[in-house]
C-alpha cells in the first residue's frame, strides 16, 4: 500500500510491537494524528498571526498558552519550541561558547551536543562515567578542576544527559548541577529521554536549561522539541534582535536570533501540542512502564548467558543488553547468522531490534500495554528455547 510517489504507507506500529530504543516515546497519540491531518499545510498555524508577529505569541491555535503550560509543567520560566533537541543545544552553545572555550560534556553525551559545541568553536572535555556507567558529581568536580588546570579557566557551559542514550541510565543531574554552579558554570540538561516520559522538575534539578525531544519522548512528529530556561538565562538565550539594515534601516521587532525568528511551526508544533495533555498524564504513571520493562527484563535474564549492561533494577525503559553468551552463540551456526533473531522476532510480531544484532543491543518497552510486555517476554524465551538455549524458570 502506498501513500504516493512510491512512498509505502508505514504500518510498523499497527502490525508489530515496536521496541526500537529511540522510537517508543515518539509514537503519536490519536489527538496528534488528527491534528497533523488538519494542520499538514505549510504555514497552517500562521492563519491568525498578529502583531508582534512571532509564532509563540499566536493564540489561535493556542500556541502561546502551550508555551506557558510547558514552562510551568517543567518548573522553568520560559520555553521555546525547537526543531529537535539538537537545535536547543545549538541555541545555548551559540550563546555561551566562543572559539577555544572549554565545554563540559560526559563520556555518555549524545553526539549532537558535541556538534553544537564544535559549531560554536568550543573544545569538548568529557566527564568520564564510572564503571557502572553513571556520571557522578565527584567525577564532574574532578573534571572541572582538570579543565581549570589545562585552560586556566573553568568550562563556560556544562551539558548533562539526564538519561543517556547509550545505557538509558539515570544520572544525578541535581548533584552535578550543584557542583557546576559552585564554579558559576551554566548547566544544560539533555532531557531527550525524560521530558515527556517521567516527571522533570527543572528547579528541583537546579539547572539553567532543559531540552526535550518532541519526536523522541513527547509523542510528536519529527523534528520537534523544547528548550526551557530559567528567568535569568531566558534573557540571554532568548534575547531579541538588534540588527539594522544599512540601506533599508529595517529592524526585526522581537524576533530572536537563536530561534531564527519564528520557532517550530505547522504539523510538528500542533502535533506536540495535541499530545501534551496525554504526555503530562503519562509521566505520572512511569511506574507502569517500569513494571512492563521488568517483565521483559526478567524474561531476558532468565536466558542463560544474557546480561543487562544498563543499571539494574532499571530506572528507565530504554535498556542495553549483552546477549553475546546467548543469542549470539546461536548466530554462530544458524543459517541466517545474526539475522535469525530479528527474523524470529518479526515472526512473532516484534520489530525494532537492529537487524543482525545478537551481541549488544538496545530496546525500549515504553508505551507497551501489559499484554504486549507479556508477549515480548514470552517471545524472547520461546526463541531462546527453540534455538537450544537454556532458560531458567
Amino acid at each position, binding site marked *: 500500500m502506498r501513500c504516493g510517489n512510491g512512498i509505502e504507507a508505514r504500518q510498523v506500529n499497527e502490525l508489530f510491537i515496536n521496541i526500537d530504543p529511540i522510537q517508543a516515546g515518539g509514537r503519536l497519540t490519536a489527538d496528534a494524528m488528527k491534528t497533523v*491531518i488538519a494542520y499538514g499545510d505549510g504555514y497552517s498555524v500562521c492563519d491568525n498571526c498578529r502583531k508582534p508577529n512571532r509564532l509563540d505569541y499566536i493564540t489561535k491555535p493556542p500556541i502561546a498558552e502551550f508555551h506557558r503550560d510547558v514552562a510551568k509543567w517543567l518548573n522553568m520560566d520560559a520555553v521555546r519550541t525547537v526543531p529537535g533537541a539538537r537545535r536547543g543545544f545549538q541555541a545555548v552553545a551559540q550563546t555561551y561558547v566562543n572559539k577555544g572555550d572549554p565545554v563540559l560534556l560526559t563520556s555518555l553525551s549524545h553526539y549532537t551536543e558535541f556538534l553544537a559545541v564544535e559549531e560554536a568553536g568550543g573544545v569538548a572535555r568529557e566527564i568520564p562515567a564510572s564503571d557502572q556507567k553513571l556520571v557522578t558529581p565527584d567525577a564532574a568536580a574532578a573534571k572541572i578542576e582538570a579543565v581549570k588546570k589545562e585552560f586556566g579557566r573553568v568550562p563556560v557551559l556544562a551539558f548533562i544527559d539526564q538519561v543517556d542514550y547509550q545505557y538509558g541510565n539515570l544520572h544525578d543531574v541535581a548533584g552535578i548541577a550543584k557542583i557546576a554552579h559552585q564554579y558559576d558554570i551554566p548547566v544544560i540538561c539533555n532531557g531527550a529521554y525524560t521530558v515527556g516520559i517521567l516527571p522533570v522538575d527543572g528547579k528541583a534539578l537546579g539547572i539553567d536549561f532543559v531540552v526535550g525531544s518532541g519526536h523522541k519522548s513527547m509523542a510528536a512528529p519529527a523534528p520537534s522539541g523544547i528548550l526551557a530556561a530559567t528567568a535569568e538565562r531566558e534573557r540571554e538565550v532568548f534575547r531579541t534582535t538588534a540588527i539594522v539594515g544599512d540601506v533599508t534601516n529595517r529592524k526585526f521587532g522581537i524576533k530572536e536570533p537563536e530561534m531564527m525568528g519564528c520557532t517550530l511551526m505547522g504539523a510538528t508544533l500542533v502535533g506536540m501540542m495535541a499530545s501534551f495533555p496525554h504526555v503530562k498524564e503519562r509521566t505520572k504513571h512511569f511506574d507502569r512502564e517500569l513494571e512492563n520493562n521488568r517483565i521483559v527484563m526478567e524474561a531476558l535474564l532468565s536466558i542463560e548467558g544474557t546480561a543487562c549492561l544498563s543499571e539494574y533494577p532499571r530506572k528507565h525503559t530504554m535498556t542495553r543488553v549483552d546477549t553475546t553468551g546467548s543469542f549470539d552463540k546461536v548466530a554462530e551456526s544458524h543459517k541466517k547468522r545474526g539475522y535469525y533473531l530479528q527474523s524470529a522476532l518479526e515472526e512473532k510480531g516484534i520489530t525494532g531490534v537492529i537487524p543482525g544484532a545478537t551481541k549488544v543491543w538496545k530496546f525500549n518497552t515504553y508505551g507497551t500495554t501489559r499484554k504486549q510486555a507479556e508477549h515480548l517476554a514470552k517471545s524472547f524465551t520461546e526463541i531462546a528455547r527453540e534455538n537450544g538455549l537454556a532458560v531458567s524458570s
Partner: protein
Amino acid sequence: MSKRAVDMTFQAIYTLTDLRILLRETAPSHEFDANQKAQVQRLLENLERQVGSLKQEILK
C-alpha cells in the same frame, strides 16, 4: 460542497484514526477484549453514520 460535508470528511478520518490507535494497542494479534470489541463496534457504527451523511451531502 457544504461545511457539513467537510466536517463529516474530517470526522470519518478521525474515527478511522481512533480505530488505528486500537490496532496499535493490540498489535500484533489484534485480539480485542470485551471493552475493545465494544469500542470497535461503536467506532464502526459512527463511521457508517458519518459516511452516510457525507453521501447525502455530496450526492444531493
